[in-house]
């Protein structure tokens, strides 16, 4: 009997030892890939938090939101990282997120403040092409050209949805006309970004919908200056990626600590050359060399989070209508 009590004591001690607090962050797939920001950020945060940071990957931004809706308050997640402003309104309506209470001085082209979500990076959507192409400088010129583009389906992909919002933000009620012009330029539509970018690199299309920062990847990681993003006069639609804390989190303090860590240099300096987006708060050392070669749109377009759901549905109907002819 004594042995049993001893064994129980040993077990409970070792259980206490093993009880490092665990912070679970749901995010999208490419965030956790070896070349993504995940590994470096995990190391940097664990060095400061005396905790175990656990990333869980769930497809892309839209899949993340679906996952949170499915799990509801029972979710193991403490943080959801990887929603964008097209999704935050729907996320807000779930009532699953808790206010972060932070005031951040972002380096974003437009003001941003959201009581529930903290921005960690951003980028502009753009059509990426080979440097030797004489690229059009607006949607009308693109529609009139013979250029072939690959885009993503908005129903299954976040960039695909971004393009719909871009055209809608730039042209409003004229968006259907723009899509009619573009219809014969659309070589094909893919399920996700990876497929589209793969087709472009295979030489199937002249341009692919991606980000203004995509050429930076080729330049910095591959020393290849052959890719450019086409600057459009209408301006470029922005994607602001955000993270939020779940109200049901069992580690609320740790979650707050992570959100605060997210806008520090340790996190932000990893973003440009791993997630290939702009940091939400420019690190002290500035952007990596090569980012100065990227185009800077004159006009940053963004539909407010509140308007996004209604515009999204309208834009999808117009898009389907124009491209199904």
């Amino acid at each position, binding site marked *: 009997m004594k042995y049993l009590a001893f064994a129980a004591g040993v077990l409970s001690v070792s259980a206490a030892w093993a009880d490092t607090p665990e912070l679970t962050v749901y995010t999208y797939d490419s965030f956790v890939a070896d070349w993504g920001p995940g590994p470096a950020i995990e190391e940097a945060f664990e060095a400061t938090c005396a905790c175990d940071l656990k990333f869980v990957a769930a497809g892309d931004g839209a899949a993340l939101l*679906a996952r949170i809706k499915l*799990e509801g308050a029972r979710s193991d997640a403490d943080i959801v990282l990887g929603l964008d402003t097209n999704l935050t309104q729907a996320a807000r309506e779930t009532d699953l997120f808790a206010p972060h209470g932070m005031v951040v001085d972002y380096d974003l082209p437009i003001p941003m403040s959201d009581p529930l979500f903290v921005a960690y990076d951003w980028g502009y959507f753009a059509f990426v092409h080979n440097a030797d192409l004489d690229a059009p400088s607006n949607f009308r010129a693109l529609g009139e050209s013979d250029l072939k583009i690959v885009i993503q389906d908005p129903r299954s992909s976040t960039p695909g949805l971004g393009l719909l919002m871009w055209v809608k933000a730039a042209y409003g009620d004229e968006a259907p006309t723009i899509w009619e012009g573009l219809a014969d330029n659309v070589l*094909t539509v893919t399920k996700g970004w990876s*497929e589209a970018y793969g*087709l472009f*690199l295979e030489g199937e299309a002249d341009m692919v919908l991606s980000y203004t920062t*995509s050429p930076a990847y080729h330049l910095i990681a591959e020393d290849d200056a052959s890719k450019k993003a086409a600057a459009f006069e209408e301006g470029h639609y922005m994607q602001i990626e955000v993270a939020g804390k779940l109200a049901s989190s069992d580690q609320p303090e740790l979650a707050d600590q992570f959100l605060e860590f997210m806008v520090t240099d340790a996190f932000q300096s990893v973003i440009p050359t791993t997630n290939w987006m702009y940091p939400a708060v420019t690190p002290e050392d500035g952007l990596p060399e090569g980012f100065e070669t990227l185009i800077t749109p004159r006009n940053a377009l963004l539909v407010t989070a509140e308007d996004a759901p209604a515009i999204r549905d309208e834009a999808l109907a117009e898009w389907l209508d124009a491209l199904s002819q």
Partner: protein
Amino acid sequence: MAGRAQPVSAVPGIGVAAAIAALILGSILAVALRAEAGRGFSAADWAAVRFTITQAALSAVFSVALAVPVARALARRVFWGRRVLITLLGAPFILPVIVAVLGLLEVFGRNGWVSGLLGLAGLEPINIYGLHGVVLAHVFFNLPLATRLILQGWHDIPAERFRLAAQLGCGPGEIWSLLERPMLMRTVPGAAMIIFAICLTSFAVALTLGGGPRATTVELAIYQAFRFDFDLSRAALLSCVQIALAGAAALVALRVTRLDGFGGGLDRAVQRWDAKTAWLLWQDRIVIAAAAAFLLLPLAAIVLSGLGGVSLLPMSVIEATVTSLVVALGSTALLVLIAVPLALSLALRPRGGLELVGLLGLVASPLVIGTGLFIVINPVTDPFALALPVTALVNAVMALPFALRALVPGARDVIASYGRLGLSLNMQGGAFLRLVVLRRLRPQIGFAAGLAAALSMGDLGIIALFADPERATLPLQMYRLMGAYQMEAAAAAGLILMVLSLALFWLFDRGGRIHAGA
């Protein structure tokens, strides 16, 4: 046959079928019950149903029509490297969609080899985008499967029949009408049905090569309902539509299928005295060469683009490879456990609804099944902890229809030929299973196991919903690499996937045939 004594019972198979139906339909029900919003069937959904049926039917017809001459040529020729060729021809079937599509585009794309040749001749490049592109890709994926299923039909004809036909002086025409056509009548409808069902759930291929929103399939509509609208009831409803379409195809196939077998033989090697004319020899050579070129050139493209990235592969790809191998082997073991009893039941009660159960795993949307299982598992235990067993189970259920197509004709012959002998020797249940069924069906079980292993290696369906970073499978890891711009490393991961899947298939298939002389 009902009511007559049989050496094996249909009950275990029926139990297995019930369990599978509960698994699939239960997960759809779980999704439907969690439904919040609801937006019935729209005109766009009907358009999606029409497009889905059209492309799946065309893909099935072309795959099978092309597979018959290929299988016949392979069945009557013995040549050096035949087995390797047959294994290699199976590769497209198990590749992740994106790898295969990029391989195809390397050959048939705007910038591909064929367009390059046409350009040299001063012609326009070919346009692969549109319905014809979808069908081309689906034939690329499914021609190998159709060929193997039909080739299996040829192998199921006992050698004695060909010997007898030769002694009676039958030429190719008589062999065709006496032996080959009846065999095709019972293998082709099933093969066509399987391919129709596979193509029903196509979505990345249909979208990428279909050219745009016109190429919306039911599976994409499910995706939209789930991801874009979070309309679970609609996702569940559309999932049922998909299953109903496959069920209708299964009924049609069963109606036109003749069930008589060829009886037993002594498993001598087949010799084809009828096919020795120079005309037939050249015909077969050309057919085999054309099929090999169509299927192997894109594979060569995948190998070429993959080799460059092998040195870039991170450790995580090796971990993912091990994970995938474990899942594939587990899935294979499960498949054999469920497929053999089910095949015996089907052999005993040919016209039951069991066939449809076999198809369920194939046509149910992975997104809906995954979500349903997630809903069921989540309150009980951590879904991530079960990610790999669930993946193995769903993969086994997915491979079941292929396994049944290969196993059922053989099982039918075994019971017809050896059932009474077994009974007269008082050999029943386990003894009959062990001494007769498993031995007679070893080649088919090997083939089914090989397919299951290879399919499981390449599957991306369920794991994507459950995965955490430490436990990704190889296809998932490949997509992650692509998402991080690592296209070359991803191509290399795709190459490893192809090589390992082929190796697994070859090992199981070969293992089943050792000493079988076929």
